[in-house]
């Protein structure tokens, strides 16, 4: 392996910074006492085994008990790479098969899903999900599409995806105020979805959902413009 072109000044600054920041984390005496000899010693925060954490009406994050057994996944609906990181959209595996309901989609990013580790994916489906796990896929207003999208950072870029209301027939995007363009949508088991690659170096983007060519105003609390986070 070749040597790195180290910058001694930056190296030293990083070492000093990390040591100083780490030193701000101090021992809590009450915590040092754990685990006790009571057979109930180690207190751990629940969370790792949460199967599905609703993000919104139709989006979820899962940290399920199953482990990644193969990458690339079998039968991807679409796949690609962003900033050198591969990703795939697959059928929404965590939703039960409900007659008349879309199964949703699931986004698998390779860097987040190493073989042997727990699956760590993001899903989308339109409509609220009932207690038995079935998504309605219907109802609501076109503007509700704004509740059914979301993004995941990938390397220095971002993948943004969403599930569309049945009347929404287009998705228009502008990156950093540039010329707007339409995003390809795709169908999967009765639902319509899109996936947008937001390239690295993009700070903001604007997203409109269209019905017969007209942009649907976002509902209160939602916005057309999104900020790409600095991870």
């Amino acid at each position: 392996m070749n040597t790195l072109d180290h910058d001694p000044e930056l190296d030293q600054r990083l070492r000093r910074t990390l040591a100083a920041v780490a030193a701000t984390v101090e021992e809590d005496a009450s915590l040092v006492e754990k685990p006790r000899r009571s057979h109930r010693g180690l207190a751990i925060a629940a969370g790792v085994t949460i199967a599905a954490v609703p993000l919104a009406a139709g989006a979820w994050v899962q940290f399920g008990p199953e482990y990644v057994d193969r990458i690339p996944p079998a039968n991807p609906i679409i796949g690609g790479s962003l900033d050198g990181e591969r990703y795939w959209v697959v059928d929404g595996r965590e939703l039960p098969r409900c007659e008349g309901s879309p199964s949703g989609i699931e986004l698998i990013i390779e860097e987040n899903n190493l073989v042997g580790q727990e699956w760590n994916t993001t899903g989308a489906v339109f409509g609220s999900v009932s207690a038995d796990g079935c998504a309605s896929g219907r109802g609501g207003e076109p503007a509700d599409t704004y509740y059914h999208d979301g993004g995941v950072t990938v390397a220095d870029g971002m993948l943004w995806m969403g599930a569309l209301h049945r009347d929404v027939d287009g998705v228009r995007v502008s990156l950093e105020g540039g010329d707007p363009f339409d995003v390809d949508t795709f169908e999967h088991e009765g639902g319509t979805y899109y996936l947008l690659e937001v390239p690295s170096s993009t700070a903001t983007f604007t997203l409109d959902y269209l019905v017969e060519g007209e942009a649907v105003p976002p509902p209160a609390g939602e916005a057309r413009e999104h900020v790409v986070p600095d991870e």
Partner: protein
Amino acid sequence: MTYLDLSDSELPVIEETYRELRLPLLRLAFLLTGSRETAEDVVQTAFAAAHPRWAAIDDPRAYLRRSVVNLAKDGHRREFRRRRLLRPEPERVTAVPELDETWALVCRLPTTQRTVVVLHYYEDLPLVEIGRLVDRPASTVRSDLRRALARLRKDLS
């Protein structure tokens, strides 16, 4: 909160390891996640996950460090996997402006690059060992570090 049962024979050893390694692991987890709460969760979970296989673990320090790195990555993703993401104000932690500025820039690195920077400059690990820890080829780790340093150098200039 979930509680684990520990057998009498294992408990003294785990207790001792816990007392010895909790703080350094907590500091590492904080550097990796930027959240004291997440760091606490990560370290507790690492110990809890190690417990059932404690007898088979040859090097608890290395094992727990690897767990913390992997769990921190999960915790980090959870932090960022939100529908609407805003730029957080960097936390002033050291009261030294130069260090706080550098820390804020480290926090803004992509997860993998940040992990490599922390493991290399805080844990003093060689790139080959970092590669083993994060399941990436050493050449890729080197590329991660190069990109991170280039970004930091640019942001600091």
